[in-house]
């Protein structure tokens, strides 16, 4: 349809319809008009506006009952016209306004909306909306002049009614939006006329009359049913604050020179004089409403509502802070509580608002603000402990968020607030109570660090692990702790560091009850003061000077590492250690050594102080974390503090309690990062002078510093061979100290020696895999016929050589393999020229010397440890046979004692040492082993064989069993290594003994343990074969030629017996 632009033509086309409509105002006719209108251009429509509106208004005005549908059509049509045109005359505006209002109100009770359909109401509201938008220029302002007030009031109250009581959300929002249009502060996209000051004032004055109605009505909407949907709430809040801002605007009121009251008659009574008293009075009333609204909305589930809270607070605070004095505190609270909102939009808007407030210097310039804030803070901290005890985690979070928000908004003025002793007291006490830790977990005390040498790898793994999770009494949520940390950091950032550190140090010293919490707080304070881990939203501020920070760090570190606070009881083992040897001995003698002895032990130590120990452990951990954190805070400046701080940290890294050593390693890692070292190794090597100094001094006072050797072992286990030259000096000191106090402290030293020699053997100077590690005899990979030929030739030759006793020689079992070439013995080269030994060798020698002495110590635990060290020494020394052999010679007698006359545990370990010795010294030991040791071992094996054969399943838990297993497993290798094949008698003897264990009645593991045979097979396969066949022979051997004798073996033709199965298996392996 072509658009009709010419007004004449348009008039022509509209005339019939309008006439018809005037005559018969039916829905149909209205529709026709509507369709006609759509064909008109806007300019034509504008010119014909009044003409078109006339029939419509006429339809509205005609008295008598009208149908809803008819009215609806008319109103919609009016709205259509209004949206496309503008109203230029005040009269038209006024008339239309009143006509539309009449449509809304019920004829019987003008204050209430008419009981018409929702559609109609919506249409009327939209038409009103359109009318106000269509008003041209300033004629709309006439609407707000005093004479119009009754009509305006009616419209407003109607709209409020609709907004509050209607069921339809659409209608509700439309009504609220329309209200907003009345304020001339619509936020639609159309162009709006901006008002000048005078006009605004006029508007404000007018609305002051309606303020109570609007605010009350809307606050009812806001606090109403949550189910009404967020959109209604949001628009209600928006209208609320816009109205309030309009009326209570500080700028208006400050200049409000009240005009002389023009005589207005009755209407004048409606007018409100915005005097000071009125402002004060209204402010108080509004505060009540506001509190109600905020209580509902600031925790609203929908983020848009919370966002509106931010807007509301922002507008009211920036425009009305002077007039709404009582509301400032709740508004700030709302704003501050949303600073850490979960929704990003809300958070960023909130930050923005706070920032702009800060920029406008609203807070800073206004002492009242600060007073209110600090007042709020005070009451919050007072109620904090109670809230933390009773509320659920969500509430705790929001409370703490609020707390944090206050600190942030106070910013640099925090320090001023904290200068008040009452505030500081409150805050610190609240923190102390909230951060109380839960110290009931037994595992913390129980978990032990392992003393194994493969720790190098473990460490890297540990390093990856985050700091240990802490358990608190009053909350479990990790976020709460993170929030508390953040809070302390912000405190440290803005507060006076000196004052805070001083105060919390006092608390730290005051009571054990506060100590952990105070340390936690101190750590975060200093981190915060250095600007570490602060969220970006924190305003900029000059950081504390490095000097002050350093002074604070120094004093706190000193306090942390002072003897009283550092050497706390964390384990009950130490006290137990004395009698544990006696205890263990009696326990070991009993047959059943159950696997749960560890449990028994720990439960024995489960005394009432377990909570205390737990608490101590945590305290040390927190202090360690603190030291790490200080290093990060101070950066390279911390290097100077390493003189005093590094040693204690390393001491704790060697602690037996897992948690502590982990925390210490974490601290070391932080120190590395802070001071700019690349690795723990660098940290230790470059500061070895400090460490060595302390170790050396403390070694002289071992009774006061019993953990000194630990530090050395931590150094060793975290560094590499480059450390050795730096600590050679101190190792000598350690050995000397060991010589001085053999008795009491020997176990501690053994740990160091163990880690030292272990490091030598495993990591620093690993032995190149020597040929010794393999069995000397060539493996049976040879070609059988060729071997046969060689054997026969050999046999023949020997027979020729030994003419006379050929018969004896023919015995198969005496046949030997050709002996291997003897080891080149370079011990002959003599002590004439003694080249300087590498330091690790000479140290290992000296250590071995001490081991020899300590081997016969009366404490079993120590003997076991010493055996371990001895074994490692042997491994280290294996490359220097000249040094090793004399030492081995000296170590032999006490070792034999351990092997023969000692606790089974020691025998077990000693046997292992002997195996290692066998591997490295070889020939040197052959005679001694076969003379001193073998008879004993084999004797005990024989004795135990029937016992184990008869024993039940529990037997596998006994020490005797383990002993048997170890000996069986080791014996073969030992024989092989020592080349016992040369002593045929011993070999045979060993064979016979091991045969006992081929019985299927033996525990299965022992039978598998008989790999001794596999070794023996390598040493002398023929002899083994024969021995096995003597016991049970599966085949009969028919001579291939009649000239040969028939082979007769004693095992032939025997019934299947207990040995059959295993012998068959072995024979199969030999094939």
């Amino acid at each position, binding site marked *: 349809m072509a658009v009709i632009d010419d007004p004449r033509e348009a008039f022509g086309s509209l005339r019939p319809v309008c006439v018809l409509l005037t005559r018969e105002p039916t829905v149909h006719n209205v529709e026709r008009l509507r369709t006609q209108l759509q064909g008109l251009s806007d300019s034509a429509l504008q010119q014909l506006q009044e003409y078109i509106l006339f029939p419509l208004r006429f339809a509205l005005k005609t008295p008598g009952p009208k149908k809803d549908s008819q009215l609806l059509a008319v109103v919609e049509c009016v709205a259509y016209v209004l949206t496309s045109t503008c109203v230029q005359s005040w009269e038209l505006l006024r008339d239309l306004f009143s006509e539309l209002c009449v449509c809304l109100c019920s004829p019987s009770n003008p204050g209430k909306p008419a009981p018409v359909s929702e559609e109609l109401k919506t249409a009327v509201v939209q038409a009103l909306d359109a009318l106000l938008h269509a008003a041209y220029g300033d004629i709309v302002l006439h609407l707000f002049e005093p004479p119009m007030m009754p009509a305006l009031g009616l419209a407003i109250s109607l709209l409020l009614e609709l907004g509050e009581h209607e069921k339809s959300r659409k209608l509700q929002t439309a009504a609220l939006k329309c209200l907003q249009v009345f304020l001339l502060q619509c936020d639609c996209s159309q162009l709006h006329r901006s008002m000048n000051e005078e006009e605004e004032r006029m508007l404000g004055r007018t609305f002051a009359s309606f303020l109570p109605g609007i605010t009350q009505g809307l606050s009812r909407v806001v606090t109403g049913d949550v189910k009404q949907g967020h959109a209604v709430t949001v628009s209600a809040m928006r209208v609320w604050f816009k109205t309030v801002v309009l009326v209570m605007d500080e700028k208006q009121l400050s200049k409000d020179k009240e005009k002389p009251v023009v005589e207005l008659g009755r209407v004048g009574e409606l007018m409100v004089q915005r005097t000071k008293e009125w402002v004060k009075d209204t402010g108080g009333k509004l505060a009540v409403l506001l509190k109600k609204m905020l209580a509902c909305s600031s925790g609203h589930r929908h983020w848009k509502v919370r966002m509106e809270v931010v807007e509301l607070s922002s507008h009211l605070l920036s425009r009305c802070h002077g007039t709404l004095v009582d509301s400032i505190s709740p508004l700030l609270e709302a704003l501050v509580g949303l600073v850490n909102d979960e929704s990003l939009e809300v958070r960023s808007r909130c930050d923005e608002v706070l920032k702009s407030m800060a920029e406008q210097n609203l807070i800073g310039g206004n002492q009242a603000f600060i007073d209110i804030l600090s007042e709020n803070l005070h009451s919050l901290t007072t109620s904090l402990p109670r809230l933390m005890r009773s509320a659920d985690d969500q509430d705790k979070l929001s409370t703490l968020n609020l707390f944090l928000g206050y600190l942030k908004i106070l910013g640099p003025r925090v320090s001023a607030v904290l200068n008040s002793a009452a505030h500081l007291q409150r805050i610190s006490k609240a923190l102390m109570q909230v951060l109380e830790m839960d110290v009931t977990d037994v595992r913390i005390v129980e978990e032990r660090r392992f003393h194994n040498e493969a720790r190098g790898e473990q460490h890297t793994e540990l390093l990856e692990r985050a700091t240990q999770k802490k358990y608190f009494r009053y909350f479990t949520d990790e976020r709460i702790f993170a929030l508390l940390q953040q809070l302390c950091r912000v405190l440290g950032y803005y507060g006076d560091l000196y004052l805070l550190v001083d105060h919390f140090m006092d608390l730290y010293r005051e009571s054990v009850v506060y100590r952990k919490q105070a340390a936690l707080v101190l750590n975060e304070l200093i981190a915060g003061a250095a600007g570490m881990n602060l969220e970006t939203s924190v305003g900029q501020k000059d950081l504390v000077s490095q000097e002050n920070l350093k002074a604070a760090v120094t004093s706190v570190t000193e306090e942390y590492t002072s003897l009283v606070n550092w050497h706390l009881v964390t384990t009950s083992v130490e006290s137990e250690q004395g009698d544990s040897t006696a205890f263990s001995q009696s326990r070991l003698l009993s047959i059943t050594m159950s696997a749960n002895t560890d449990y028994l032990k720990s439960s024995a130590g489960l005394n009432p102080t377990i909570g205390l120990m737990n608490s101590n452990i945590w305290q040390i951990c927190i202090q360690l974390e603190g030291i790490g954190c200080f290093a990060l805070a101070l950066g390279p400046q911390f290097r*100077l503090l390493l003189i005093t701080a590094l040693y204690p940290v390393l001491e704790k890294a060697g602690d037996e309690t897992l948690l502590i050593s982990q925390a210490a390693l974490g601290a070391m890692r932080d120190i590395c990062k802070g001071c700019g070292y690349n690795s723990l190794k660098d940290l230790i090597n470059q500061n070895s002078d400090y460490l060595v*100094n302390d170790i050396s001094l403390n070694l002289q006072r071992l009774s006061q510093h019993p953990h000194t050797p630990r530090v050395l072992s931590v150094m060793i286990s975290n560094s590499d061979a480059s450390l050795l030259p730096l600590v050679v*000096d101190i190792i000598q000191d350690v050995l000397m100290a060991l010589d001085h106090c053999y008795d009491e402290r020997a176990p501690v030293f053994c740990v160091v020696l163990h880690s030292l020699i272990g490091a030598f053997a495993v990591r620093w100077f690993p032995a190149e895999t020597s040929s010794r590690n393999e069995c000397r005899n060539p493996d049976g990979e040879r070609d059988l016929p060729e071997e046969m030929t060689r054997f026969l030739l050999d046999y023949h030759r020997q027979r020729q050589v030994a003419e006379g006793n050929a018969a004896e020689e023919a015995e198969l079992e005496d046949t030997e393999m050709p002996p291997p070439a003897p080891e080149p013995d370079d011990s002959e080269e003599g002590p004439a020229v003694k080249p300087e030994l590498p330091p690790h060798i000479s140290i290992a020698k000296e250590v071995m010397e001490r081991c020899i002495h300590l081997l016969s110590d009366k404490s079993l635990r120590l003997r076991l440890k010493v055996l371990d060290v001895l074994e490692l020494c042997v491994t280290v020394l294996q490359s220097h046979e000249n040094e090793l052999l004399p030492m081995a010679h000296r170590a032999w007698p006490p070792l034999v004692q351990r092997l023969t006359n000692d606790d089974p545990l020691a025998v077990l370990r000693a046997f292992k040492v002997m195996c290692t010795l066998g591997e490295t010294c070889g020939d040197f030991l052959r005679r001694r082993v076969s003379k001193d040791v073998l008879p004993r071992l084999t004797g005990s094996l024989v004795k135990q064989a029937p016992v184990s054969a008869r024993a039940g399943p529990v037997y596998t838990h006994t020490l005797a069993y383990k002993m048997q297993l170890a000996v069986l497993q080791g014996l073969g290798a030992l024989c092989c290594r020592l080349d016992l094949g040369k002593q045929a008698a011993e070999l045979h003897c060993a064979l016979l003994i091991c045969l006992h264990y081929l019985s299927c009645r033996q525990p299965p593991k022992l039978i598998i343990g008989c790999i001794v045979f596999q070794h023996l097979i390598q040493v002398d396969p023929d002899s083994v074969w024969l021995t096995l066949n003597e016991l049970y022979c599966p085949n009969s051997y028919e001579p291939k030629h009649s000239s040969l004798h028939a082979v007769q073996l004693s095992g032939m033709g025997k019934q299947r017996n207990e040995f059959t199965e295993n012998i068959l298996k072995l024979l199969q392996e030999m094939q």
Partner: protein
Amino acid sequence: MGPLLSLSQFWFLCETVAGVGMFLFQAAMALPPPDPQFVLRGTGAPVNTLHFCCRNQEQDKPLLFSGSANGAVHVWNLRTRRTESVLEGHGGASVLWVQTLNSRDALISQGRDLRVCMWDLAEGRSVVTDSILTESMGFCQCSLLDREGGHWLLAVPGADMAAVRVLDLPSKTPVCTLKPDAKLGMPMCLKLWQPDSGSSPLLWAGYEDGSVSLWNLSERSLLSRLACHAEPVMSLDPGKLRGVSGSSEKAINSWTLDGQQSLKLQDSVELVNPGISHLCIREDRRILATAGWDHRIRLLGWKKLKPLAVLQYHTDIVQCVAFSDHDVPNKRLMAAGSKDQRISFWSVYNQI
């Protein structure tokens, strides 16, 4: 049940308890000697001499200079407890003596390569600006005396066995050569001294035969001589009018200078073990420290030579002791250098 203890047993017990109590009491009364505050290692050779420079520290960097037997002078920063730099100027020959000239930037060191070197250490430099040949093969340390106006006197053991040369620094012009008439042997230790009253500087010298002599430099004459030791004098410290000397024997002797400028033996302390390699009176004249061949450092009250403490840490001969010149008295330290290559620091009797 019979009596649990017989009477004699009871008394025995009482005595034991009392004895333990007494022991504890005494232990509490007599504090154990302190440990070193810290120890410096890393000279790599026996430490021969020490010199503190802690005064006027603009950058809060107290220094200690140590001369060791491998010819190196180590400059230690006592704040970080690490070497700032190592000065190698004597070609590996043992450094006998180091001293600063007024400030920390100018150092003088004497080595057994027969040279006395002047160092410029300003602005991180470490260069030898000048050197003097000493011509003496002995172990006698030089001595330096500050004269007003940027001049110093340096006493150097001379080429002739018994002579001592005195030079003016920085001009290096010889002032005098002092040679005793009697046969005293080589000079073992020297100390230049400016008495308060007289204008002429004096020189104290300890000789091989155990005598201590006082020389007047301007008159080039021997003022007094005191045969106070039977063995060579190893070290002396003249104090003011009362000095002290130690030798390789078992005694420390103190002597006074009376109005007639003559020396008198005053006091003597018997030691358990012989041999004093060095001794030093603290600036405030309250404490005397001695470095012993028995690996020990002894502290004596200077007034009455009352033994106060025996400090034990080193594992070899202690070769030198020195008191720091910190401005703040309670920061003052005592250092001892030993043949075991370590320098130990002690905080002793400095709480005033």
